[in-house]
């Protein structure tokens, strides 16, 4: 177990130290701050573990290795390392977007660490696969267009999501760090993470996940249409499916109450019954 994954991934542990562990993995685009609006609902009863994928947020940029992070396995390995280093077990792993598949890969590799998975807006493959009759929602040309947009707007998307000149009187709780660094990363990392996200095919992985899972499906999500969420549900051996009213790709940001309630309800309904009462 290599030391230092806590520092490398800028891991933060919040909430109730003796509570069950819920770990949140952010998706393509931003960093652990994405969970800010959702996390408060978990703090009183759970130990909450937040981290940044290497290359995002305040992770150690020097640890970014183009080889290691050319597939979701590199990211999944980091999650396993964090759990081992912190000595976690029975972890509820919540993964958004590509991190839903990263979570599935971590759980397939080390089922002993995780009690349940929550997959928020998951997609095992964004590109359609006509021969297999699979609809991911995008053509290969669409993804090329995305990578082009990312490249041609390099400074625009990846680094220069400009710090606001105006103040933000509505949201005084947002610290300086959030307003200046949120969603910023190095452009070449953004490019590679986009490739990993949008060119990964994790369909074969789903059948190997033995951990109980919840698929949280958004409405009007251009990245993960409902048929994709259904596909994930059908192919995960032990999974539940929940349709959210929340629209867009980030329900934990746009509808934190609904999303949090859905996760908590799932955790309660599937909680292992304590032996003393069952007997």
């Amino acid at each position, binding site marked *: 177990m290599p030391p230092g994954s806590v520092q490398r991934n800028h891991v933060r542990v919040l909430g109730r130290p003796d509570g069950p562990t819920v770990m949140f993995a952010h998706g393509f685009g931003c960093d652990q701050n994405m969970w800010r609006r959702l996390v408060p609902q978990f703090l009183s009863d759970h130990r909450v573990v937040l981290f940044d994928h290497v290359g995002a947020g305040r992770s150690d940029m020097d640890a970014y290795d183009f080889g290691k992070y050319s597939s979701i396995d590199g990211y999944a390995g980091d999650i396993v390392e964090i759990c081992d280093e912190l000595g976690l077990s029975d972890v509820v792993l919540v993964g958004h977007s590509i991190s839903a598949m990263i979570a599935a890969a971590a759980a397939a590799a080390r089922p002993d660490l995780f009690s349940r998975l929550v997959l928020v807006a998951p997609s095992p493959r964004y590109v359609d696969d006509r021969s297999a009759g699979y609809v991911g929602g995008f053509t290969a040309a669409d993804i090329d267009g995305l990578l082009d947009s990312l490249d041609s707007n390099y400074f625009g998307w990846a680094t220069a*999501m400009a710090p606001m000149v105006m103040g933000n009187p509505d949201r005084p709780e947002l610290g300086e760090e959030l307003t200046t660094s949120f969603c910023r990363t*190095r452009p070449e990392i953004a490019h590679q993470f986009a490739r990993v996200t949008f060119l990964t095919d994790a369909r074969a992985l789903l059948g190997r996940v033995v951990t109980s899972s919840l698929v949280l499906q958004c409405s009007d999500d251009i990245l993960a249409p409902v048929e994709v969420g259904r596909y994930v549900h059908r192919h995960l051996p032990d999974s539940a499916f929940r349709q959210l009213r929340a629209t867009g790709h980030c329900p934990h940001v746009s509808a934190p109450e609904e999303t949090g309630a859905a996760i908590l309800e799932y955790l309660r309904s599937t909680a292992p019954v304590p032996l003393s009462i069952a007997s």
Partner: protein
Amino acid sequence: MTPLAPVSVPSAAAYEQLFQQAPCAYLLTGDDGRIGWVNETFLRWTGYERSEVIGTPLPKLFPIGDQILYSTHGQPLLAMVGAVAEVAVEVVGRDGARRPALLSAARTAATDDLPATVRVIIFSAHERRRYERELLAARRAAERSESQRVDAEADLHHLALHDSLTGLLNRAALTGYLQAQFDGSGPLRPGLALAFIDLDHFKSVNDSLGHRAGDELLLTVADRLRGAVRGTAVTARLSGDEFVVVDAVTEPARIGEFAQRLLSVLNEPVLIDGVEVVPSASIGIAFAGQDTRTPERLLRHADIAMYRAKVSGRNSWQVHPQHNDPAADRLRRVGELRHGIERGELVLHYQPRIELDGGAVHSAEALVRWQHPTRGLLSPGEFIELAEDSGLVRELGAWVLEAAVAEAAGWQPVAGRRLGVAVNLSPRQLGDRNMVRLVTDALQRHRLDPSLLTLEITETALMLDPDAALRSLQALARLGVVLAVDDFGTGYSSLTYLKRFPIDELKIDQSFVAGLGVSDGDEAIVASCVQLAHAIGIHAVAEGVETDAQRASLAALGCDLAQGYLYSRPVPVDEFLRWCAAQG
């Protein structure tokens, strides 16, 4: 003129007008991006009917890549931070064409009564540049109208006394006007300048074609001068072939433009009695100031300067030196620079450009120096701005191009390879219609292979007028020369546009290179620039490389060429060639 009514609170209709006809697109959307309200500017720009876009999620109007990025970056930022600023997107119009745009948005959180709303502004990236130019023009017009008001009183004199032949003010009226300027209760109009214009060879027109022809010429000159100056200027004819123009030249550097404009209108050929005459004149300029507070002294100084222009070869202008005055000092230096160019006081120094892979000398950047007769060797920082402001930059640029091509054509190959030369082009040269001809002529005259000549244009110059720059660059690219974007990263970077230009090389600004190993941000920018250059198939060049550590980082990043003090400072050509020989 009726004064404007005091500004009152705009009516609802005025607000509506402001919204609908704003110079950028305004939209209001919900958190889900659905468009609830849109102004006419947006509809005009995209070609959609209002009914087609209301209720449509805004991102649906972007190409798919931008849709994804907006949903992974833009919307979370809006929700978490409350705003995004100037995100580069493309908007697909009704005709299917993509329109480059900059999008800013701010979100107002939901209240008990109202859902959250997102206020979006979309600028056409092209139009935005045009608006910036219009804003500048409007400001200049406002300044002009203000000075017209100030001059209203003085204009009365204009009507009072005039020259019977040309209708211009006569000497008495001019003197009266100047006296009023000096006697005024307030301070003297800043930059009040008097141009004394004496036609060259007027006597020979009179002698050979007769007095009537001479009068016709004077009338033509009077008309042209009147047409060439601003409404606030005063034009007079003193006697015979002597004219005067008085105007405020608040920017000392503009005096060159002012004088040059007068000369060029006069130089237009005129047909008199079937004979084509090309009028020319000698112009002397004096500024009203401490030592010229009377009309007589001001006229006297301008007359002396005119005389100097006459003896220096006619059809030219001179400014009377005004000591203890930085503005006048600047004018004197413009004259000096003009002569410096003519007298061959400029020299080129060369800084080698090295291939990072292997370390071979690739070429040299030519950098101009001015061997000033009294001030010693001056670097461009001390005179380029002067050259640009005074319009001398064209002559300067033409000289540099010619000299660099001539010298480079004579260089011996180093290690079996011909050395190239890189020359900087100013924004004005880029806009110069003769540029392509100048380059072609220089290459042909000195038999230099076009691929050995690199022309460097700053990013800012490209963005001043991207369409015009594109045309110029395309014409230059057809010659086979290498085109480089200089100071990359410091200007208005939108790669969407840069990709349109036929560029072969991207020069990373030295300020970023200096940050290598010091600032993560700079390192990321340099890395991005290199990667970007390679992504669009062009070379990356780093300037200002001073340390071996910087060289090593650049080599690791895959940067192609480097220049800087680490290798050599810019040196005279002999020294440069010795340096190259020593490398072999």
